[in-house]
Each structure stands twice: as C-alpha cells, then as structure tokens.
C-alpha cells in the first residue's frame, strides 16, 4: 500500500500539473525528463528549470537516446532537489553507478513507471514517428509488449521500478489517457506532495495484472534465449555472433555500467609489437586485424556482466547489428546469480567484486 495522488486528467497532463506546481513553488529546482526537440518527434533528455519549458517534456516516450543514468551521473550530487523521470532500467543503471560512486542519490527524486519497453532509435526516429508511438501506447494499455520494441525489452522482467520515489502506472493501465495516478513510495515523495492540492488515496499496484505481464515477459525471455542459445561447441558459436564486431566499442561507451575513463581494453597493454603478431601467425593460418575482438567482448563481460541491467542501449548503437545486450543479459544473469545479486535493486547492496564471504564456493579450488 502506498499513498497515491489521483488526478482526473490523462497521466501525462497529471504529472505535468504536479511538476509545474512543484517547480513554481520551488519545491524542486528542476526536472530531468525526455522532451520533444522537434516536430518530427525527436527526443532528448533535458534538465528543465523553467515552468513554461515543462510543456515540452515527453516523460513516457518509448525511446532511450542515452541511458539516463549517464546524465544523472553528470548532474549529481545536486545541490537542490531535482525530479528525474526515467525508465526502470535507467533507474537501476543509476543505482549501479551510484554503488560505483559515479553519482549520488542526493537531492534526486526519481519518478519512474511500469515500462512497456523502448523502441529502437531507428524505429522511433522514423518519419511516421507519431503513428508508431500512438500504436505503441494503444498496445501497452493491455498486457502485451509491442512487437517492435528492443529485443531485451520483450524479455525484461523488471518493468516495475525497483527504487523509484514516485511510480506511475503506464504499462497495462487502460485509464492511461483519462486518469493519472502518482504512487508516492517514499517519505521524500510524500513530503513533496504535501503542498499539492489533490485527492490522495491508499492504493497498490494491480498484482494480478502485473503477474500477467510478467508471465508474458518470462515467455518472451525464454524465446529470446532460445534464439541466442548456444548450439555449436565452444568458441565457434561466440565467433559466429561477434565475428562481425568492428571493434568500435560503442557498446561499452553507451553502457551505463562501463564507467571507466580509459577502458582497459583500449589501454597500451594490448598494443602488440609486430614480431609478436608475426610469431602468433606462425602458429595459425591467419590472424584477425585489429586483434582482440573476442577478447574485448569476453573481457567486458567479465568486468561488468553481473551489473548488466539489460537496457539494450549497446545493441541499439551496434553498427554491426550484433545482439550484444541479449548476450550480456543472459550471461549477466548467470554471473549475478552466483552472488544472489540483482543489479540496481538496492543502493546499499555492495557489488560482488567489492566484498567477499569466507564461506562461499567451497567447491572451487580443489
């Protein structure tokens, strides 16, 4: 049960009204949200501090130009309260970043919503953006995930925000266009809403509905994993998948978890003297140039897979169209499982590589 603000206008307007109130009363100093930046629907993330500019926000737009956790990192720790309207996986991404001291929850009030999935950038940024988006919202009134969203979204079980201060029901909400409900999950949120004149009721998520969605998502996940299942033995499969990688490392650059200034795999450790390469050639028929294509992928998995929140950003920017995020999601789940770790679930939880337990993996090492 949590306090819920009910407003009888459609969810976006409702939220907007609430935000305008907070901003104009200096309850908050700004709003970070997706916003429309031109008539043909292109969105970017904006940090808005003027009430009038709020009109432009598209809080629920099914697109992820950047994983917002990156942006939150750059504007935190904030000196004044800021409301950030982000997707569940972006929120989890940020939590993971905060654990790595790449940002702070200080003065950030997170608004998130039950997410129907994100459209690939190309799909969203197409000319008939309007049509596509309205279809999207039509579909997610029900419990089906639209077919044209990112593959990992179809397989995402964490469509309900984990740690949001305010949750809005979007996916599976048939009254989305008539009513708006803002669930105040935390003291911080409730405090904010104090000054806002509105009807407040006690309400909780419709579990039956959510379970139904979850069931479908689980099925989606099985389907996805079947598609990328390992059929061949050993390396070959992996090479089949990543063979076309052009080594642009775009995946790591857009990844909310990859936070390094200089990626280890771009460091001088991996520049080889030509004689080393020639020597390796003497043992092989051929040698790929530039080298370490597979090494990079495996290495990145090793560095952050257990924190992968499956946002799908990497897959979206991959020029070679490799199902990066599907693979990472799958592998990530297996590594996180080792430590019963759910990335982004709790800021207090320590990332597995930062701590140890004396009594674990007794089987290892013999």
């Amino acid at each position, binding site marked *: 049960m949590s306090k819920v603000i009910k407003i009888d206008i459609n969810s976006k307007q409702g939220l907007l009204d609430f935000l305008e109130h907070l901003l104009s009363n200096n309850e908050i100093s700004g709003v970070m949200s997706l916003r429309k930046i031109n008539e043909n629907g292109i969105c970017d993330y904006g940090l808005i501090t003027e009430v009038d500019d709020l009109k432009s926000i598209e809080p629920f737009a099914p697109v992820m130009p950047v994983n917002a956790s990156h942006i939150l990192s750059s504007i935190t720790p904030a000196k004044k309260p800021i409301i950030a309207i982000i997707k569940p996986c972006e929120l989890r991404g940020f939590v993971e970043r905060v654990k790595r001291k790449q940002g702070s929850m200080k003065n950030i009030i997170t608004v998130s919503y039950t997410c129907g999935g994100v459209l690939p950038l190309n799909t969203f940024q197409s000319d008939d953006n309007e049509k596509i988006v309205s279809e999207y919202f039509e579909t997610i009134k029900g419990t089906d995930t639209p077919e044209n969203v990112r593959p990992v979204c179809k397989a995402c079980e964490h469509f309900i925000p984990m740690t949001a201060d305010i949750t809005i029901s979007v996916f599976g909400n048939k009254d989305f266009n008539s009513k708006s409900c803002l669930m105040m999950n935390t003291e911080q949120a409730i405090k904010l809403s104090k000054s806002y004149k509105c009807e407040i009721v006690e309400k909780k998520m419709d579990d039956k509905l959510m379970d139904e969605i979850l069931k479908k998502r689980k099925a989606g996940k099985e389907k996805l994993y079947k598609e990328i299942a390992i059929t061949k*033995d*050993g390396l070959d499969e992996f*090479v089949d998948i990543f063979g076309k990688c052009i080594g642009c490392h775009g995946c790591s650059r857009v990844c909310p978890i990859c936070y390094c200034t200089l990626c280890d795999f771009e460091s001088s450790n991996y520049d080889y003297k030509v004689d080393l390469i020639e020597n390796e050639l003497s043992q092989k028929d051929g040698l790929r140039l530039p080298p370490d294509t597979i090494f990079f992928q*495996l290495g990145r998995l090793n560095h952050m897979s*257990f924190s992968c929140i499956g946002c799908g950003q990497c897959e979206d920017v991959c020029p070679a169209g490799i199902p990066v995020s599907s693979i990472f999601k799958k592998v990530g789940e297996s590594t996180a499982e080792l430590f019963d770790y759910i990335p982004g679930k709790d800021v207090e939880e320590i990332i597995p590589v930062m701590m140890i337990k004396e009594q674990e993996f007794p089987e290892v*090492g013999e």
Partner: protein
Amino acid sequence: MEKEFTPRITSFVCKWCTYTGADLAGIGRLQYPTSIIAMRVLCSSRIDPVFILKSYLKGADGILIGGCHPGDCHYETGNYYTRRRFMILKSIFDSLGLKSDRLRLSWISASEGGKFARVANEFTEKIKKIGPSDTKRNMFL
C-alpha cells in the same frame, strides 16, 4: 603433422604458498609434465581474470591458478577475491559454451609439493582429453 599433443598450460601461482609448493615438488623429485609453466605473482589476487582470458585466447590449452588455502592468504583476504573473480569468469565461460574446464583454480599450500604435482598431472591429463584449444585454429578472434 600433429604428433602427440602436449598441452600448453599457463599457470599463475602465488609466491607464498603454491610457488613454494611447486618448489617442494622439485625438491622431492616428484615428476609432472612440461605442460605446466608457473608464473610467480605476489598474491593470487593479483591475477586479473583478464590474464586468464588473454592466455586462453592466445592459445593456452589450459590455465591454472594457484593460491594459498582460503584463510591462509599472506595478504589476509586476497584469495577470497581471487575465488570470486574466478567464479565470475567461469560462469561466463559456461553460459557461452566455452570450455570452462580449461580453467582450474587450486589451493596449494607451501607444504603440499605432492598436491602440486598431482594437480599438474591431473590437469594435464584432463586437458589432453579435451584436446588442443580451439583458439589456436580460429583466425577470427
């Protein structure tokens, strides 16, 4: 061309326990295959999984990590981290159908010369069964 297959096993061992154990195997004139090539680091926790990866992709048929028994680490807790990192890599290998049994982590104390030899032999045999690493052939890595 392929005569009898002698695996290449890179092994990173900690200076305090396993390396000493390896020496003890020598002093006791215990025999183990040439395949094992021990590289000495101060603590098994220095062994970045990336080294293991690298060795694997550069054609090592097996990779052996040796450290002090949990609780014995000369640096208090180092090998507990080694253990975690190793597990992460292992599970990655497993979920990708890469042969994780090419990787082995063993706790070998300074007095366990016998164990070092045993591990070296067992592991080499195992690798022989698995066969040469596919990374040797594949030119698209």
